[in-house]
């Protein structure tokens, strides 16, 4: 049977016939896919039913389906609330700040690590840079407060030797974003560089040999070989990072928050936590979170589109 006649038969069978045909031919593959699909539906799509709360005046007694519809009331209430701009701007500020450094520094670290030729030292370097990743967020925040306390922290004591006064980093709303981002970089830079190291070790050594023959220095090799070959990995990591853009580490922000820096540290998710779970305004908090998710989705799709246009790599 020639391919064209096969296509004709398939076309004759119509849409349903074709789907049946495919199912019959690939039954085992679809069976393999089934558990993952069922899990996805159960844990990602079924809970989305709760999103209805955002458009209803939810009360636990009436249930999600029984509560009366209120349309966009909660969204409008959030847009008009005095917390709208501060929370949105703080969230965006911290998110963009942490993408800029949290995304680029692991690449730099991987490039440096790749240039270390003494294998034992390279291993030691890698292990030390991974270490902080395994500290829990709670302990990490404790460490930050221990080091940066303006009266008797480690840094304050160190500056005290030179008679310098420690600026109050913990209680300063303007310093909050830096505090959050740099402690995060310190903690995760090594771990996030693993994937780039893997990509670097997969580069064909013949490139380096050819470059060496042509007289390229190691710095030139790094810029002309390593970096361009890392671009596809970078793009995927960037899109993944952007997908998580507005889901800033909620617990870390909450733990580092204090009444002094609140104007710089109140982000959407901590606001949702306070409004929704502490004051029981379920519908309002659902609406805020839904709004944040929609913004994030728009950003994700945009970045993915730009990436596909520029580098021909994309998630979808």
């Amino acid at each position, binding site marked *: 049977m020639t391919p064209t006649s096969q296509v004709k038969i398939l076309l004759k069978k119509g849409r349903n016939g074709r789907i049946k045909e495919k199912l019959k031919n690939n039954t085992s593959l679809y069976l393999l896919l089934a558990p993952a699909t069922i899990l996805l539906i159960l844990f990602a799509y079924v809970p989305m039913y709760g999103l209805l709360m955002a458009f209803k005046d939810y009360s636990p007694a009436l249930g999600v389906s029984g509560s009366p519809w209120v349309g966009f009331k909660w969204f409008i209430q959030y847009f008009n609330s005095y917390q709208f701009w501060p929370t949105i701007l703080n969230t965006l500020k911290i998110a963009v700040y942490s993408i800029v450094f949290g995304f680029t520094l692991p690449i730099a670290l991987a490039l440096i690590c790749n*240039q270390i030729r003494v294998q034992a*030292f390279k291993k030691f*370097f890698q292990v*030390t840079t991974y*270490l902080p990743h395994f500290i829990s967020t709670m302990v990490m925040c404790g*460490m930050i407060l221990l*080091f940066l306390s303006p009266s*008797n922290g*480690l840094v304050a004591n160190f500056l005290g030797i030179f008679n310098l006064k420690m600026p109050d980093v913990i209680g300063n709303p303007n310093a909050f974003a830096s505090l959050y981002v740099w402690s995060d970089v310190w903690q995760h830079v090594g771990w996030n560089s693993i994937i780039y190291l893997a990509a670097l070790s997969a580069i064909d050594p013949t490139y*380096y040999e050819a470059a060496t023959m042509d007289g390229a220095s190691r710095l030139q090799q790094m810029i002309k070989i390593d970096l361009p070959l890392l671009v596809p990995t970078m793009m995927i990591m960037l899109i993944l990072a952007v997908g998580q853009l507005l889901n800033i580490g909620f617990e870390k922000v909450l733990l580092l928050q204090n009444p002094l820096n609140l104007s710089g540290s109140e982000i959407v998710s901590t606001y949702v936590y306070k409004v929704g779970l502490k004051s029981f305004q379920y519908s309002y908090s659902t609406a805020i979170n839904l709004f944040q998710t929609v913004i994030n989705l728009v950003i994700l799709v945009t970045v993915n589109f730009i990436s596909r246009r520029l580098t021909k790599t994309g998630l979808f």
Partner: protein
Amino acid sequence: MKITHKSRRPKSLQEKRFDVLVYGMAVLLILLIIYPLWFVIIASFSNPQDVATGAVWFWPKSWSLEGYKTLFAQPLIWRSYFNTRIAS
């Protein structure tokens, strides 16, 4: 003739400079990451007053297990540790 990746040839001055830069940065980063971790460990074995006044730098000062005693005296510590394990 085959050129291997690690061909033995004298390093140029430029190469040497590059190596110094790479290893310098690596050592600096290691110190930056190791020291806070080390400080937490030595601070846990030191006298709280010495930690607060800045007498502890590289080695535990006036060795004490006071912190651990207080920790294990907490009645809830084992219970919360058990809960953490269950949850993860």
